[in-house]
């Protein structure tokens, strides 16, 4: 489990990219008060989802504007076709904790 940061440091609408201590970069979002974590790299082409625009619980890939549902990692429309992996994340005592699972991709 990794402590990402305090919830105060990630206000609603903000995102962070985690590269330390994880097998592949992970993007953490505060979407209207709920924290989500997904694989950072868009499944379509080389773009960082942490750089993407957040709308509700969807993040838009900054390159081709596919939207990914943060709840299950699935893209809502082309060009992305494959879902990104989601990662369990929780807030404990005001600290955002990321649970790293070493498992197969979704």
């Amino acid at each position, binding site marked *: 489990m990794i402590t990402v940061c305090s919830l105060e440091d990630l206000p609603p609408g903000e995102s962070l990219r985690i590269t330390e201590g994880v097998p592949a970069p992970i993007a953490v979002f505060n979407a209207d008060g709920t924290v989500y974590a997904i694989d950072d790299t868009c499944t379509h*082409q080389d*773009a960082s989802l942490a*750089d993407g625009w957040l709308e509700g619980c969807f993040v838009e890939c*900054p*390159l*081709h*504007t596919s939207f990914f549902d943060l709840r299950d990692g699935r893209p809502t429309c*082309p*060009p992305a*076709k494959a879902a990104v992996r989601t990662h369990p994340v929780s807030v404990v005592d005001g600290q955002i904790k990321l649970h790293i699972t070493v498992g197969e991709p979704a």
Partner: protein
Amino acid sequence: MKNITVVGASLAGLSTVRALRAEGYDGEITVVGAEEHRPYDRPPLSKDFLSGAVEAESLELADGDDYEVLGAQWLLGQRALRLDPASRTLELSGGRQVLTDGVVVATGATPRVLPGAEGLAGIHTLRTLDDAVALRDDLRNGPGNVVILGAGFIGAEVASTARKMGLDVTVVDPVDVPLERALGREMGELADTLHGDHGVRRVQDRTVGFTGEGRVTGVCLAGGEVLPADTVLVGVGVQPVTEWLAGSGVAVDDGVVCDAGCASSVPNVVAVGDVARRPDPFTGRHARVEHWTSAMEQAGCAVRTLLAGVSEPPPVRVPYFWSDQFGVRLQFAGYAAPGARPRIVEGDVQDRSFTAVYYRQESPVAVLSMNRPKPFNRLRRTLVAPSALTAA
């Protein structure tokens, strides 16, 4: 409407098929495509595919499951030759006749060629997968002199890829700031400096001919210089594919003339993508837009118009395009209207990592970023349509 024919099987055509099903249309769909390949993504053809980083399979826009769900008939390797709206007939190469209630024109555009290039091997245009394979093979046969004619986005991206492959590259364009129309003069000049930064020689001149027998050996310029050339890419723009509409009554003028809802001058015929000339609600201009996102976005609009039988103008969308060249992810949204002045709002121009917002009458009408996707995405949401600003 019981059957609809989509003429064109690339991004606009496929997006149209998807949009038809998404709107609940469950009638027949026939797609006619001039290329043998199923729809594939063109942008990587000048970048990762050309360099060999990715293969053709990764360019496919849909897989077997998608095609099954979409349930359309794909007639590939066939061209539309004639459309007769009176008899609702579309005639294809090979003699086939298709009877159809509705037509979506999505035939895109083909590269312009230069006189004197006929019959000379080693002179390429770049539009299709087959073009990219031929160009890639020639570049791999290097080392040699690569001469690129045209410093627009295709020319710049191929120059960048060829430099990365270690080749000697010269880019020729008669215009002093080739990207002025897309980015405005100041930012167009900045984009031009990327070439020199990466060892590409830029020549401002006009091409008047070629040397060589059977295979090109040089490019002749109006100023007298002859550039030695082993491989030439002609990237001087495209023209819309509309010859097949001659005699159909569909108004054509540098593309299919459409209204904001993508309706053509003939009922039940709409147009989408590079071939469509329509008024853009954001810029206020009547133009063909050759960008990737336009092909996708217009499909929904055209489909709604076709199915409703009446033109349904779409909500205003901010035009967007990107270009990966010389280590820079360049992203642009909005419209660099004449008179709009760019202001650097964050980052560092020297590092080629910054964001500039263009202002017209103090309102932000466009944003350009080099390697700054996050501020770009935020600022592109703040743009105001120049068409909405009152005339000064």
